[in-house]
């Protein structure tokens, strides 16, 4: 279970998170929606301990991730798999070496690790790509390789940072299906951040709306679709008119 309590984070004078509260139960799929630059990635980086909170805490199964020393933090990270916005594949390695990175690091033999990689790649719908370099892949394929890498060490929690951004709608829907499949087949807990409402409705058990550094509303996809909160309404309908201020544009 992931419990985020009163999370604050600023970069210099720029206050990004101003008290985020959010809980994710085991096996649940929570989607965080919010505008570009609203701090969604910053929030996610706190969950996996890449950033430390200024105030507040992130508890993973009751353990405060920011209080762990380096050794225990790396241990705790093995519970996680994260898919980055740009996939963040290691471009000096082949696809299979990317996928099996953790396995190779923990001493698995190359032949065996490659077999596991091929299997994980098949799970995300890719075949015959294991010997390619990341630069030879399309955007959608890169995301799927990133996903295969994220699940290779059998994590309990999956974090997806804008999994459908920047790829065509059909590929995006294939990724949505994969995220659902991961939860159903691997029984993982997942947190997805996105501003793609179609994707959010499809993969979420619960949706949380991040605005102005706080979670202003959470609910099931149906509750969010029929929300009465004017901020959430404006965001999900994608309207430039409403209470949300757009910097640089006057009303």
């Amino acid at each position, binding site marked *: 279970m992931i419990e985020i309590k009163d999370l604050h984070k600023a970069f210099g004078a720029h206050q990004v998170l101003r008290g985020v509260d959010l809980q994710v139960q085991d096996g649940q799929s929570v989607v965080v929606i919010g505008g570009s630059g609203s701090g969604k990635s910053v929030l996610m*980086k706190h969950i*996996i301990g*890449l950033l430390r909170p200024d105030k507040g805490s992130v508890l993973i199964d009751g353990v405060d991730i920011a209080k762990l020393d*380096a050794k225990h933090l*790396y*241990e705790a*990270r*093995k519970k*996680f*798999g*994260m898919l*980055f*916005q*740009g996939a*963040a*594949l*290691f*471009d000096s390695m082949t696809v299979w070496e990317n996928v099996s*990175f*953790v396995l190779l*690091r923990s001493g698995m033999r190359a032949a065996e690790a490659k077999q596991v990689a091929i299997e994980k790649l098949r799970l995300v719908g890719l075949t015959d790509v294991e010997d390619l370099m990341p630069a030879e892949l399309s955007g959608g394929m890169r995301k799927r390789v990133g996903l295969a*890498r994220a699940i290779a*060490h059998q994590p309990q929690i999956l974090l997806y940072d804008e999994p459908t951004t920047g790829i065509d709608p059909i590929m995006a829907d294939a990724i949505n299906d994969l995220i659902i499949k991961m939860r159903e087949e691997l029984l993982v807990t997942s947190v997805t951040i996105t501003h793609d409402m179609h994707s959010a409705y499809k993969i979420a058990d619960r949706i949380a709306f991040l605005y102005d550094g706080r979670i202003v509303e959470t609910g099931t996809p149906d509750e969010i679709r029929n929300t009465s909160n004017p901020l959430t309404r404006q965001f999900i309908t994608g309207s430039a008119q409403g209470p949300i201020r757009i910097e640089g544009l006057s009303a």
Partner: protein
Amino acid sequence: MRFVELLGSLIIGFTRGVGSVFLLFAESLKEMLLPPYEIKNTSRQVLEVGIKSVPVVIITAVFTGMVLALQTFTGFKRFGAEALVGTVVSLSITREMGPVLTGLVVAGRAGAAMAAELGTMRVTEQIDALETLATSPVKYLIVPRFVASVIVLPALTVIADMLGILGGYAVAVWLYGMSSALYWHRAWNYLEVRDIFGGLAKAAFFGAGIAIVCCHEGFYTEGGAEGVGKATTGAVVISFMTILISDYFLTAWFLK
């Protein structure tokens, strides 16, 4: 007033930068000593930093030895001391030009590559990805580059020393008709073991400096592709300064 503010912020910025480099250095040392050891990555870096620098080092060293001989021969002739050409070449190369030029060449070639590579990895979130895959980026990326540079620079300097002296030989003997025996005699007779080892010690120090400075610039890159460009230029400039300034003080210290 403006000037004082500007000066103040420059000094603070410089101090912060130096502090940050030393913190990264301390962390690299800690990660270097803790197992598991990155043997495979380190060997790959030895190849990247070392073997691939050999051709440039050879050309640099040969021509430096040649020009030293040329200058000495023509210059020293004015007071009839051209027989000393072997000594001037061997002392200048082993004590000074070998390590310094090797350092500059490696900084320009391998150091720039380190900053560009780490910078790209930072802005494309590959460094964050390493963290999420339970791997310390300092251990995985910086330690191998650091260890490889410290090993490789003295080795390259040995090559530079030999080829520099041979370059001098080519000019003195083949071009100016000096006797081969006289060149070798002069080159060896006044050369002391500590000249060579002092030079190699400086080279090892430059290797450490280049690796840590260039990795630091790359590791803390901000701002996309433009940031990577800035980090790379910064890495080369700071490495050059580090080499040239520390060279003076190391030399002064060795000569004491």
